[in-house]
């Protein structure tokens, strides 16, 4: 595998996106009809790919305890429901979460780099990463500098992602492009390539703090960039969609996009994540619906 060390690879892959075509493709994939076993398997897969998330100013140790329990056993008493992929939280709460989730299989993911704006000095952002990793974070969700990117300073974005990756050491780095601020699919593609070239392990759509957050066409465009990056370098970069994904139906639509754009190899928590909070309960409710034919009382699902 050639080493990926500079922007050259992003330039070599290049390419552009036609907005109408990308949206048509996403709309067409959204008509896939997922029924019966495929639905059950898809819903379980979505649970396994969930980054159960809380990113509020009001987050407290108590909230983290609740979510850590939910992440490990989304449906208490039902062993057929797998644990989620990760718990995604602010850095201050990482050490607590790491203790709670030790040996559970659920990873601790921490946002860092002055999430969600990224508007802090680079040194402070890198320290934030180092600290979160030292506290036990397995994964770091960083934000790219949209200001620098939109100003055309791709070098700066590249250097920052690269430095973040280095600061994260063994931790898995997800680079948030904040697609809703980039203004075009062309820029989303370009930002995807720059972030991957700089060493991001996963590229992620949104912080969830601005609207629009993740959309199906954005996911299509990013998945196509990941595929082209794989063709060029052999590296398998992950995709994380986040923000506004609340229904099981939407989650299945993202799985369809991943399956038909990147292939089955990407249908695993190692390469695909859905950042969500309320989604998980809808997944559980739809799973019960598949098994019993009936929708259960919403109070049968824990509010955490």
């Amino acid at each position, binding site marked *: 595998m050639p080493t990926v060390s500079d922007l050259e690879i992003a330039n070599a892959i290049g390419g552009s996106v036609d907005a109408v075509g990308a949206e*048509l*493709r996403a709309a067409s994939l959204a*008509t*896939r009809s997922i029924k019966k076993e*495929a639905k059950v398997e898809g819903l379980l897969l979505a649970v396994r790919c969930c980054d159960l998330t809380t990113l509020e100013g009001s987050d407290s140790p108590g909230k983290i305890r609740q979510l850590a329990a939910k992440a490990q056993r989304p449906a208490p008493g039902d062993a057929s429901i797998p644990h989620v992929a990760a718990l995604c939280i602010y850095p201050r709460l990482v050490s607590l979460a790491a203790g709670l989730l030790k040996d559970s299989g659920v990873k601790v993911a921490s946002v860092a780099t002055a999430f969600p704006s990224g508007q802090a000095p680079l040194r402070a952002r890198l320290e934030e990463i180092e600290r979160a990793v030292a506290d036990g974070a397995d994964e770091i969700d960083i934000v790219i500098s949209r200001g620098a990117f939109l100003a055309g300073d791709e070098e700066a974005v590249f250097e920052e992602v690269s430095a973040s990756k280095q600061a994260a050491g063994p931790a898995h780095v997800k680079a948030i492009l904040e697609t809703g601020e980039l203004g075009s699919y062309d820029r989303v593609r370009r930002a995807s390539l720059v972030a991957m070239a700089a060493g991001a392990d996963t590229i992620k759509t949104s912080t969830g703090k601005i609207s629009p957050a993740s959309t199906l066409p954005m996911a299509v465009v990013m998945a196509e960039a990941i595929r082209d990056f794989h063709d060029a370098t052999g590296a398998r970069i992950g995709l994380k969609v986040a923000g506004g994904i609340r229904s099981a139906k939407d989650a299945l639509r993202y799985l369809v996009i991943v399956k038909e754009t990147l292939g089955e190899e990407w249908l695993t928590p190692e390469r695909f994540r859905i950042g969500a909070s309320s989604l998980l309960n809808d997944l559980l409710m739809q799973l019960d619906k598949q098994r019993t034919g009936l929708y259960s009382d919403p109070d049968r699902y824990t509010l955490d």
Partner: protein
Amino acid sequence: MSSTWDYSPAPESTDMVDIRGDYGMFIDGTWSEPASGEYMKTINPATEEVLAAIPVADETDIDQAVAAASKAFKKWSKLPASERARYIFRIARVIQERSRELAVLETMNGGKPIKESRDLDIPLAAAHFFYHAGWADKLEYAFPARKVEPLGVAAQIIPWNFPLLMLAWKIAPALATGNTVVLKPAETTPLTALTFASICEQVGLPPGVVNIVTGAGATGAMLVRHPDVQKVAFTGSTEVGKEIQRAIAGSGKRLTLELGGKAANIVFDDAPLDQAIEGIVNGIFFNQGHVCCAGSRLLVQEGVFDALIAKLKRRLGTLRLGDPLDKNTDIGAINSRQQLDKIKELVGAGIDEGAELYQADCPLPERGFWFPPTVFTGVSQSHRIAREEIFGPVLSVLTFRTPEEAVEKANNTPFGLSAGVWTEKGSRILWMADRLKAGVVWANTFNRFDPASPFGGYKESGFGREGGRHGLEAYVRLS
């Protein structure tokens, strides 16, 4: 959890479809048996199962149908235009109301994927009626300062690739302009046309305004030759179109022909490749390539040839071929054994002539008529697969270096129905569109239709336009 995530079968229900054992023809507002007593069978091409027996119209039946249309013309053409519009609006609404039934029927009888009949054929058919209903009382604005009169009885013959949609393209403008109609659906796909006849009954359309006769080529030949027909509209093969033109020459009948095509889909090296791939796939594999304006010749600028072909081959692997009623099917059944044989013959010719064949690795169902998505590379202009209309899921790929060469190759065909241009450069799109001899030029998209947009061909792809204000012109006498 298995290692792969496969979609479970998701068949559309056929409950709302009521296929009768045998059908009559719809003449003068009643269902009549054929004078000859002769019937033919219509099948489901995906299963070869017989769906119904369909009358074969002979001279007597055609006489009756044309007489009914002539008689109805007297009143229909004098009806206040807003009244005519009301009937056409009602037809449009009932098509929407019965859209599931029509979509399932279209798929069962023709083999096209349900997602296409559901999302494209039927909604567009309804849109054509809505659009033309709007024109009915505004013809003086379509042709300012001209006197607008209907022609009389329109004989309309439609193909099997978009049965209800082609019916809509024909009947909607004819009715809006005050003409009456005798329409013959294709012999392999008569069921939605006959269901449309029941929609005419449902909306209370006056008897004789729309007549549907069924049969094969001989029936169509009788219909266009009938002396009381004032207008002939045909969509189908260039060969039959020429026959019709010969047959009615000198008769004073007005004629529009929408015939074959061998469209060039031209991809420049700056094109958005992933969307171009979707456009290429949609251009040639949409409706199994049974599309007169299909992008059957792919012209690729040399610099992106390798990248584009690699992407195209991978994309072929994700196309889902199978049960047309399954909502996740991308490629349905070939419409008939005859068409399958023709596709096989031309693909054989491509191999013999030395082109390189690539086919998606997909298992074909045992029963029914099927052909896998196929791409030929290394195709020369002189190969039959670059010249002749295959009308199947077969793409011929050629390369070019300069825009001039692309235009030259694109236009170097007896046909001229459609073309596609893929580039990020707006000026180049306009430059190309000026030079391409094709009735429709799509830019960074393909196979998009709208009732307001005129459709028709150059050269051996026919003449006359359907849709838009231009389409109305084919059904009126202006003075």
